[in-house]
């Protein structure tokens, strides 16, 4: 979770400590369409995975990102 939080914080300009599973475009104004794609790009690079288009469009909040990463066998140390 720490690496994920670091990336979220860098891309979305938010405090790592305020990131929860519920964090989403609805409560983070900087989570716009460009930053959403940048987030995908950074996650793919950092965790060495490739998401499908469907996986990307299905993400509604941080919990969904974690699930997608787990599906790609990424272990997120809590």
């Amino acid at each position, binding site marked *: 979770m720490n690496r994920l939080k670091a990336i979220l914080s860098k*891309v979305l300009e938010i405090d790592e400590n305020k990131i929860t599973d519920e964090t989403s475009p609805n409560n983070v104004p900087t989570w716009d369409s460009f930053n959403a794609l940048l987030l995908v*790009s950074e996650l793919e690079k950092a965790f060495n995975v490739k998401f499908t288009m469907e996986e990307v469009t299905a993400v509604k909040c941080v919990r969904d990102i974690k699930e997608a990463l787990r599906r790609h066998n990424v272990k997120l140390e809590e």
Partner: protein
Amino acid sequence: MQKIKSLISVARPVKAADYLALFRKIDSEMRQDRISGGKKVKIALLSSSTISGLREILFTKCCESGILPEIRAGSYGQYAQDILSPNSWLYQFNPDIVILWTDTLSLLGDSYFNPYEMTGVQRRKFAEEKADGLKSLVKALRERSGATIILHNLEVPMHSPMGILEEKQDFGFHESIRHINSRLSETFREDARVFVFNYDEFCSNIGKQQVVDHKMYYLGDIRIDIQLMPALCDKYIAYVKPLLSLSKKCLVLDLDNTLWGGILGEDGFEGIHLGPTPEGRPFLEFQKSILALFRRGVILAINSKNNAEEVLRVMREHPSMVLKERNFAAMKINWNDKITNMHALAKELNIGLDSLVFFDDDPANRQIVKAALPEVLVVDVPSDPALYMQTLNRISDFDTLAITTDDLKKGQMYAEQRQRQELQEKTEDISKYLEQLETKVSIEQANAFTMPRISQLTQKTNQFNMTTKRYLEEDIRMLSESQKSWVISAKVEDKFGDNGITGALIIRKDSVVWEIDTFLISCRVLGRGVEETLLAHLIEQAQKAGVQKLVGKFIPTNKNAPAKEFFKKNGFMLLKNENGAEYWEYPLAKQYPFPSFIKVEVKGAK
């Protein structure tokens, strides 16, 4: 700019998100007016598809190079309107640089997917039309704006419905794109303000399969992987730096484990690795690449802890030593520390520390130089010598926007200068030295061959330059064609070689008054009677023309102190001080002799 530097050194950006995060930090500092300094430049980005993020990344990349840019991006797909409408934001913004990126898909439309709906003849016509369209767009932009234009060429696609038969087609799909690219290159080859950026080559270098992330393309119409944007911006910056006179001039090299493998002092003449062996070839080919830079005008120098005699023996006798004494403009081979030597090199070559690039295999030395002399560009040399050549070839800091014939000889000229210096040190009396140099000055009316160099001299000469007025090639052409002005250049040769065109004079005149608009001498020939020779020629011409007044102006800058006393020392009288400028007049009744030790040749007087 100090503030920005510290932000960058803390952040150490690598990925796209790092650059974007850093951009926001710098931007917020700027909004609070906490940033000053840095070279200013205005850049406009025009594109046929979405380039979100590129503006911010380019901004941060500029900051890394000490540039504080103002960058604006047009709406995507609006580039033609932006260029063709005279009232568009583009012309109000008045950029110094315009980057125009039209991508293959946008330009071709449906025929990108189905190119063989057309016959070969139709495809040729189609390609010509597309090339003409781009050409006339760039020409319109060129006419309406003074900006330097960087034009992307087209990425040649990888796909073809013809598969292995693609190259068998009459004016095939791929050939038609390559054709457009050649057309663009040909059209602007001689144009000093339009540069075709080989985007196709950039994509090939990356690997075309990696350039587009198709998921991102469908989701956000993004046609280049965001992670590649920093590398793309590096390519852009290679054009920005020379425009702002941030190009480097001199490559300073270490010796042991840099130009050859091993340590000369320990392994001996026979023991060093240099030559056609697996251990020796990386060094041999690295030296060949350095020689190629020398041939395009890069000055070479050595900064090494070594025994000078042993090194000279390698240069003179080693069968695989490519670089010889005559290639080096200065050699500091001694037991002094690298910093002292670096200062001495800059002084001897009469160039700033900010013109130096340092290549040394030893990370400790690099760290020392980096810390003590932040102006010097220290190359991050990989630990494996097999990667030296590739590292050297990636340096874009020696790039210039034009290469004059004088530039090509610059490395050699500086090496000859070292021989002059040695003569001067041997000769006690300066006038004897000047005599022994056997200097010849050729004074010539500006012409098509000399105009590019004269313009370049006005751009680059800072020290002996009375007014520091900068002129483009077109300005020089207008001045030299006008009846009201007169442009001449001075070419300087001596027994060690040709210094090329190193002096220029621009006179604004009417029948009564001649005013010296520009009087400059390149510092590499300064103090050798060239400036007096040019002045003598000018005074002689003014007297012949029956002019009543010869007036000179001195506008002081931070750098032109060497020119300050010139008028005073040469019989001019101070007329007045006005707005920081000094006005001087030469009493034309008085003769002014040519220096006796210089041979003068005058071609085509006006």
